[in-house]
Structures are given as C-alpha cells and as structure tokens.
C-alpha cells in the first residue's frame, strides 16, 4: 500500500487533499460532510474581525467551454459572514470530533498589528493545527485595505506573517495572491516573515463575462457587476508556474508549498507535488461536483504511486523540478518533426488548416485512390511546433518524432547567432 500521508508546514495529514478556504468550508455541516467523504483537512472559510461582513446575492459567474462544461468560476463572495464565535465553536467541535483530520483557521484583518494578533490568538485557541493568512482576495476585501491589498505589498506580507508568528505557536501558512508581477517577491517576503509554508494561488482577478443583453458583467447584482476571483481548471497552468518558481528559485527554495489552483483530479495534484508542493487544496472541483470527488483523488493518486513505485508523497515530491528550467537552458539543437499515422487519420483536415493558415505550411494534402485525403508532413518546412498534434482530434494520430541531428546540446547563451554569446575562455 502506498501511503498518502504527508506533512506540510509541520502539519500531519492522512492525505494531501484539503478543502481550500472558500464557500465549501464555511461551516461545520459542510466540513463534516467533506471529512466523511475522505478529505484530509479543511482550511476554514476566512474569519475576520466582528462584525461579520455582509454578502450580496448573485455571487458566482462561470466560464464554459463550447460544450457547456464549466472550466472556471469567478466569485464575488467575501469572507465568512457568520459571527466569529460561532465559527470558532464549530472549529473546536470539529477538531474534537475528527482528531485525525486537519483544521486550519484562515484569517484576514486590516493592516493593524493588534487586529491580526488578537484574531490569530482567538483562532489558535480553538485548537486548529495551523493558521492561514488570507492575503489574496482580489475583490471587495481589498477595497477595505485587506486581502490582495495586503498580499500585493511585500512589506505587508512579511509584517503580517511576522505578527502572527509572534503570538501563536502553531504553523503559519501565508496565502499568496497571483495578482502580482513576480510571485517570488511576496513568497520571499512570507519566508522572511517566518512562514512555515505558503499557500497559493488565491483567485485570479477577473471579469468572467458580459451579459450582452443587459450590458453588465456577470455575476450581475441589480444591474451592475464587478471584478471577482477566478478559479477552477482554467487557472491551473498559472498556479503550476507559480508553484514551480517558488520551488526552484534560490530566494524561496525550501519554502513549503500548499498548492491551490484548479486541482480537479488526482493527476492535477500529482503534477503540483512533482513541482514541489507538499500538499494541495481544492475548492472549485468540489463546488461543481460535490465532496465525493475526493474519493477518486485518493484512489487515483494511490494507484499512480503504486504504478510508479512511489511509497510516499515525499518519494515523488519535486521530481519534475530538475527538468523545469529557464528557456536559456533548453537545447536549441533538439529537432522534432510531426508524424501522421495514416491508419489512425480520420481525414478531418484540422492539422492541415492549422499549419497552412497559422504555422509553417508544412502539411500537404494528396488525393487517395479511394477518394479520401492523405496528409503528409513536409519535413523541410516542419519546425516541430506541436500545433498539428494538439489540434488533431484523434489521440496518438499525430506524434512528434525526435530527429537525430548529430549536433550537441546547445543553449541560446552559447549559440553562434546570439550576439551576446558567451565564448568559452
């Protein structure tokens, strides 16, 4: 049996799947259902200083594919709108009733030392295993000087992290906003402030769409809309990149990462772990399908680890990091050519039109004797861009074949055409 157990920021968990701080972890009823379904932990929906916030109605907008599947949600909901003591009591109960699961308290306050410290102490006293600092909400809270307004200023990130570290003796997770130019700056600030781990990404600032009848952004609140926080499958690539950067850049190396961003299946989770995350947090997938999706996350990750011979999460954590490099380290002499499998080809012409119109005119159509069409790659024109392979609707029909060039590994800094080339002394 592979062991799905893991330790992140010093917190032990039976599996790497936690609910992210969001609507699904708003109260005991939901979190209890999540634990019954198999989630390893939950980061409680963010708590603020009383009085609680007031939410609007019309809180979510969605981004759909053409076949109407949802790939992203945009939300304009604020932090918990329930009284602090109700939340604290429920968290305490959950800790007592589910001793093998993790409850992390998420908190948010204005840039005031006393506010952060007293809130952190109250939450820590409820018995949670860790505290997460919400420095990310890109809507509503930031207009009050909280959320991303704090997370976008590295000094504030360091300060809030330090304040909380000073008053609690449980692990502190600093949750980062992706709405910055360089994620390394706030991540390094969190590290400097003493964070045990960073959680990322919070939602991406977005307008999910415009209702062309009412000419208002969605979700629409009484005829008007606002920007909100974007999450779900569509943001996963952004989150993967930011995870990778924190894991591999010298300024932040060694900082533990609780990865968040579009994780929908065990495979997504495995990718984040391979890039250096210690565990993951999930929200959108649960909102779309219910807590039951964790069943296959656990089973699928376990099966993957068995297949690959990994006995623990730690066994493959960071395994993709060495292969994740800057562009300047790539081999320019590596050469790929597209190969089309005639047997598998259904003759749709998608590869042809993509290459012909938007790439390198490297696919030729010939009439076949049976009246069909044969698609052939013109090697001299093919630059190996992968576009045809990706647009082909038949899996495995177009492959990219490495051509033996007999040329050595050559990077751009060493390339003869590079005017700034480093010449070996």
């Amino acid at each position: 049996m592979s062991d799905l157990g893991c330790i992140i920021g010093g917190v032990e968990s039976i599996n790497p799947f936690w609910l992210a701080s969001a609507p699904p972890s708003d109260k005991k009823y939901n979190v209890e259902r999540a634990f019954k379904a198999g989630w390893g932990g939950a980061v409680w929906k963010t708590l603020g200083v009383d009085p609680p916030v007031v939410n609007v109605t019309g809180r979510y907008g969605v981004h759909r594919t053409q076949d109407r599947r949802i790939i992203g949600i945009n939300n304009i909901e604020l932090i918990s709108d329930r009284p602090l003591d109700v939340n604290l009591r429920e968290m305490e109960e959950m800790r007592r009733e589910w001793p093998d699961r993790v409850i992390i308290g998420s908190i948010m306050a204005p840039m005031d030392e006393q506010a952060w410290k007293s809130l952190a102490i109250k939450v820590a006293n409820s018995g949670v295993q860790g505290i997460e600092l919400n420095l990310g909400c890109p809507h509503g809270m930031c207009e009050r000087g909280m959320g991303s307004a704090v997370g976008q200023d590295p000094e504030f990130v360091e300060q809030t992290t330090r304040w909380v570290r000073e008053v609690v003796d449980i692990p502190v997770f600093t949750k980062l906003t992706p709405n910055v130019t360089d994620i390394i700056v706030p991540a390094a600030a969190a590290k400097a402030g003493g964070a045990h781990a960073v959680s990322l990404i919070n939602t991406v600032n977005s307008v999910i769409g415009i209702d062309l009848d009412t000419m208002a952004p969605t979700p629409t609140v009484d005829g008007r809309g606002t920007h909100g926080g974007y999450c779900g499958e569509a943001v996963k690539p952004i989150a993967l990149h930011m995870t990778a950067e924190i894991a591999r850049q010298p300024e932040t190396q060694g900082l533990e990462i609780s990865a968040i961003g579009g994780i929908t299946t065990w495979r997504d989770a495995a990718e984040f772990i391979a890039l250096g995350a210690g565990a993951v947090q999930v929200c959108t997938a649960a909102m779309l399908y219910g807590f039951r999706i964790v069943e296959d996350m656990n089973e699928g990750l376990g099966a993957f680890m068995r297949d690959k011979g990994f006995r623990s999460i730690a066994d493959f954590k960071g395994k993709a990091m060495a292969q994740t490099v800057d562009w300047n380290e790539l081999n320019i002499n590596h050469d790929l050519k597209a190969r089309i499998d005639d047997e598998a080809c259904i003759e749709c012409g998608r590869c042809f039109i993509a290459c012909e119109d938007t790439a390198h005119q490297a696919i030729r159509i010939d009439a076949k004797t049976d009246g069909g069409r044969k698609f052939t790659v013109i090697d001299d024109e093919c630059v190996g861009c992968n576009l045809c392979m990706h647009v082909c609707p038949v899996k495995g029909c177009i492959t990219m074949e490495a051509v033996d060039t007999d040329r050595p590994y050559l990077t751009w800094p060493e390339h003869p055409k590079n005017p700034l080339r480093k010449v070996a002394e």
Partner: protein
Amino acid sequence: MKHFKLTTDNSRLSSRDIAENFDDLHPALDGAQAIVEAARCIYCYDAPCMNACPTRIDIPKFIHQIRSGNLDGSAQTILSENIMGGACARACPTEVLCEEVCVVHHTEGAPVKIGELQRHAVDHIMMKGGSHPFSRAPLSGCKLAVIGAGPAGLSFAHRAAMLGHDVVVFEAKPEAGGLNEYGLAGYKMANDFAQAEVEFLLAIGGINIEHGKVLDDNLLLDDLRGAYDAVFIGAGLATARGLGVDGENLAGVGDALEFIENIRVAADKSSVQVGDDVVVIGGGNTAIDAAVQAKCLGACNVTLVYRRGPDAMTATQWERDLATANGVVVHYWASPEAFSGGAKVERAVFSAMRIDDGKLTPSGDSFELPADMVLKAIGQTLNSDIFGEMKLDGGKIAVDAQYQTSLPGVYAGGDCVKSGEDLTVQAVEDGKQAAIAADIMLRAKLKGAAE
C-alpha cells in the same frame, strides 16, 4: 428508431393513435441538445460532409454558428446554398449523404446529427418570422417561367428572384411543394411543414404561382418560350410505371405515390382507406414510406416485396430498419406475376427470382400472398410526348452542364433530368444552378442589347 402504434391481434388503432403516428418522426432538438450535439463536430477543413451534400452547404460553418449562438447566421449559411434546407433536414437520407462520411464515425462510432442540427437552425429562423433572410438584386426586367412548383422549380424561382428576375411558376396541383407536399411520408413533414416552407420561400417576393396549369393541356411550352425570357422545367416524373401483369387493374391495386398523396392531403389521417393485408412492391424509399404509413394507418400485415436482394435495394438501411422495426416484412427476390380476386384484389402471386449469368430471372418457384391492397412503388417515368422535339437522355430530359435543354433558353432540373439521385436535395441544387446559369445568359443578353 421510432416505434409507431401498431394494430395487434387484440386491438385496432384509434383515430388518436393514427394521428400520433403521423407526428414528427424525430422530435426537434431543443437549444441545449443542439449545443451539445454541435460540440461533437470536429470542424473539419474542406469537410467530407460538405462535399457529400449535393447543395454543398458549409456544414462545419453552420454547426459552428449553432455553437457560437448565432442561429440566424447558421440558418443563413444553410439557406444560402439550399433554400429548402428545412425539408432536406427532415427528408434527406443523411445516412447516405453528409452523415455517412462524417469523420466523427471514426472517433465516436456515430456521426454528428447534421440533419437534426440543420433543422434546428432553419426551424429557428422560420418560426421567428420577421423579414426574409435574403434580399433581391436590382430588378433586371426579365420574366422567367417555371413549370412545376416542386423543389426544383421553387429553388429555381427563389434563386432567380434573388438575382433580380420576376418569376411565374405554373403548377398543376392545388398546392405548391411537389413531392415535399404530396410524395413523402406524413411523419417526415409533420405540421404542414412543406406549406410553411413554400410560404417562407415566396416571401422573397417577385414569384407568382398559378395553380391548375397542366403542361400540354392548358399550358404550352412554345407559348411560354415566346412570352418569357427563359423557361425552367421542373416537372418531375409524372407517369407511374406499370407492372404489365394480370390483375393490375383490379380494385385495390394502386400506385404507392397516390396512396401517399391521399394520406398527405387528408386532414384526418384515419379517414384514409388502408387494407388489412397490404403488399408493397418496390425497393426504394417511396416503397418504405408507403409500407410504414400503411402500418401507421392500422394495416395488420404489410409485406414489402422486392425483386432483387438487399444489396440492390435503393432504400437506405435506416429506412429499412424503420420499416422492419415497425412490423413490415421485407421479402427479397420475388417479382409479381399476377393479382387475383373478385370485385377487389385478394391475392398476389409472385415468382421467386435469382441471378443467372448476371441476369435477373425467375427461378421457377412461385408463391402467393393474401392481399387486399397492393401498392406499386416501382418508379415514375417522364411523359416524353409532351416535350416535343426536346432531346432526351435515358428517358429523361437531356441538359448540358448549365442545365440548358436542347432548346435555347429552356432549362430543366429535378427528377425530370439525369443529374444525380432523385432526391429533394438534388432537385434544389439543380434549380439553384439552373437559375445561376439562366441569370448569366440573361445578363449577357442584356449587356449585348445595351451595346
């Protein structure tokens, strides 16, 4: 596959059962279903479906437009190539045209439902009403005559009107639409769709239909040639073939198309007479339409008899499956020898057939089927006598690549010419292309006269 209500040993069909049987064969897709179905389309380049359509509708484009929510544009894409896209969406044997070559067969095992998507888009624009989606070019001053208000004639008329010409259509029957109105199974054209389509098409303006005009009776080709700048013949094939066997004139032996027409014109389908033991002779889609509709009307036993084997049958597999799923018994390799009975047909005698030296010949065996109704669906022919000196080709009107007959200024299309399969969609294409050719000819003439 639709299962109609059928007569059983214990019960006959009520008039409500019969009315339900003649409801739409395929329920229309709703908006959400259409989007899901449209999403299955791969958006092929130079798509096989498009090339398989006689009218060359840009199918990937119209399906993409359904996906993008541009239903008006989708309908426009369809109708710009095929003004009877609504009828074709219902009646086309898509299983041997666009859907047969759909590449999604290879990836998913079943094609995109192109016909149903086409119907979705066209129904949308027709039900929406409002202004006609096409406008007319500046008027040319030319007047064109059309013989026959079937799919070929109406398609010609619409395209000619669009190109700026005025058109008069002469039609023998009280309603326009041709076989769409009179010759297809009722459940394929439910809710009087053929008439709705005619009305839609005429809304372009510049087209007048004169009914009760019969060629060589109260309508003469020579007169038309004198009075109009060009003539289009879309007269179809009006003469039913005969079997030339004993008893063919007995009461109860009739033509399948007549039977279908009786059903189509009946407001109350249960008023149409049908036998208990119906024998349909033929192997095309008309034979299937007659056989299945006989079942829909409550016939106890319907046997479709075809002189050759399944491979030679022109009815598509889908049509055959519809028939067999609804209790029609198909009997291959048998040819009618005689019909017998008293005042009315009671029996049909068949010779078993086989291929000898590549020739269809009686095997020597024969058998009998009880029959109180025999429907012949063995095809129609052109009444060539009425076309005078016009050149024929294989029993049909000969036309050149521009759809012009041997008489200058006289064009022809649809079932009365040999262009492709005798299908509505082919007739529409013929009419469209003939109108484009006539327009080029007329423009050249006008230009010549001006110089």
